[in-house]
């Protein structure tokens, strides 16, 4: 397995799309944090509450999640597009081992970048807003939540890429499931609609970033629900990968 991880690391570090998508995720996190925190500070009369300051620092996550999901898609769909998947499967004919290698290497890479981007976004944002009563625990919780959430979004992309195999199709699916449909779900009427919206992908997952419970989900419970969505996409992709001709 260590051979496969080495090989996947060489693959991911040697293409420019990795640098671009990760730089975009980082830039969106930090840039939007600076922009929004500065604007809040400007408009505020008096000190800014800690909770609001932390939330403003991490608002870029809405867009950064798509950049990192795009890289997740590309990690596998670019191999299907070029036909390189055949070379990969000739080298590693056990397909689940190949997929596991991709998940581990991409997961570790995005966790590191997500943590750095979240830390930078929090640092820059809080430097602007300067909330008076800021607890270290609150900042650390936000940092962990944001890092894990972004990484999960990347894995969601990789799962969808495995399932759809086609780059534009998988990216559209990612945008739909992570950004568009959660908003649509929020418009559903009645108690039934509220429950659907609450459990819908990023609506549930972002509870961990905000550190707030929804009607029936705790922050970690919400993140668990999000992971279940990701698991469904990834397992479906894995089953098809195992079955289909390459």
């Amino acid at each position, binding site marked *: 397995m260590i*051979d*496969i991880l*080495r*090989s*996947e690391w*060489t*693959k991911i570090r*040697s*293409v*420019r*799309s990795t640098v671009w998508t990760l730089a975009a995720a980082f830039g969106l996190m930090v840039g939007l944090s600076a922009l929004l925190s500065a604007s809040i500070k400007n408009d505020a009369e008096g000190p800014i509450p800690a909770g609001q300051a932390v939330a403003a620092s991490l608002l870029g996550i809405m867009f950064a999640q798509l950049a990192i999901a795009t890289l997740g898609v590309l990690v596998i769909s*670019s*191999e299907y597009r*070029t*036909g*390189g998947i*055949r*070379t*990969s*499967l*000739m*080298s*590693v*004919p*056990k397909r689940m081992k190949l997929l596991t290698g991709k998940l581990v290497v991409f997961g570790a890479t995005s966790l590191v970048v997500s943590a750095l981007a979240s830390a930078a976004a929090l640092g820059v944002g809080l430097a602007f807003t300067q909330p008076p009563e800021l607890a270290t625990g609150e900042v650390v919780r936000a940092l962990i939540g944001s890092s894990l959430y972004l990484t999960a979004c990347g894995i969601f992309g990789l799962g969808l890429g495995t399932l759809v195999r086609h780059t534009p199709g998988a990216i559209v699916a990612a945008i739909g499931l992570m950004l568009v449909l959660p908003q649509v779900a929020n418009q559903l009427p009645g108690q039934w609609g509220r429950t659907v919206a609450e459990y819908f992908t990023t609506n549930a997952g972002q509870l961990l970033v905000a550190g707030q419970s929804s009607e029936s989900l705790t922050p970690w419970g919400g993140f668990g629900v999000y992971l279940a969505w990701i698991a469904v996409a990834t397992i479906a992709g894995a089953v098809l990968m195992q*079955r289909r*001709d*390459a």
Partner: protein
Amino acid sequence: MTAIRATNLSKRYGSTMAVADLSFDVEPGQVTGFLGPNGAGKSTTMRMILGLDRPSGGSVLVAGRPYAELRHPLRKVGALLDAKAVHGGRSARNHLLAIAQSNGLPASRVEEVLETVGLREVAKRRVGGFSLGMSQRLGIAAALLGDPEILLFDEPVNGLDPDGILWIRTFMRELAAQGRAVFVSSHLMSEMAQTADHLIVIGRGRLIADTSVQEFIGRSSQGYVRVRSPRLAEVAELVKVGELHHDHLRVTAMSTLEIGTLTARAGIPLEELTFVQPSLEAAYMELTKDSLEFSA
């Protein structure tokens, strides 16, 4: 040991049989040509050998085992299917490094194979900018990484210039001379006649011939003399051994000189006196004419 053994191998796509009940062996120490018209099922067969496509029936073993059960497959088998199937954004060296690492091969092997195929100078360049010839060399480098005893090449000379064709041809001969099994597909008989020792010919996914090149040439290259004359019946009577066709006489047992002498003595004018040598290409066309999927 038999390098590749296909047993009743079949592949069905919907209602079409791409490969039907195909059985053959590929032996080490020789170049085995895998010959057939375009669409005959050669690439599909190669993908099944390599565990990429799942057979609908039958089985195929590589070095005695199904491909997917080989522990470091690249140390046993090297293959070049599609030279352009690489991520264009990667350098040649990184492309090969990722492949080498997956099978626990040292980075030094990458430098060695780059040297072997003559790509060392361009190792840092992105492979998206490579010409077809360079891509073929890169693909061959990848196939050689694990120093495998079995090599598969799918249409390796397609689209290459004469230099490239000669290089690949010589190279495959060398690999076989080293005792490796070389299995190479082509739709060109002339190409195979110059490279292969053994031929496996398929058409519409079915086996047409499994024979040595020597035998194939012997069987198909018998020439004849074509004679045309306004007094053809008289010529036929004169040479006795001819086979009369509607506008010409076909003679296999006499030379042009013998026939010409006979007819000259009898004072019969001739329109044509030609020795016809059917090419290997013609023999192959004859063999596969019923199995072309799309006829012109």
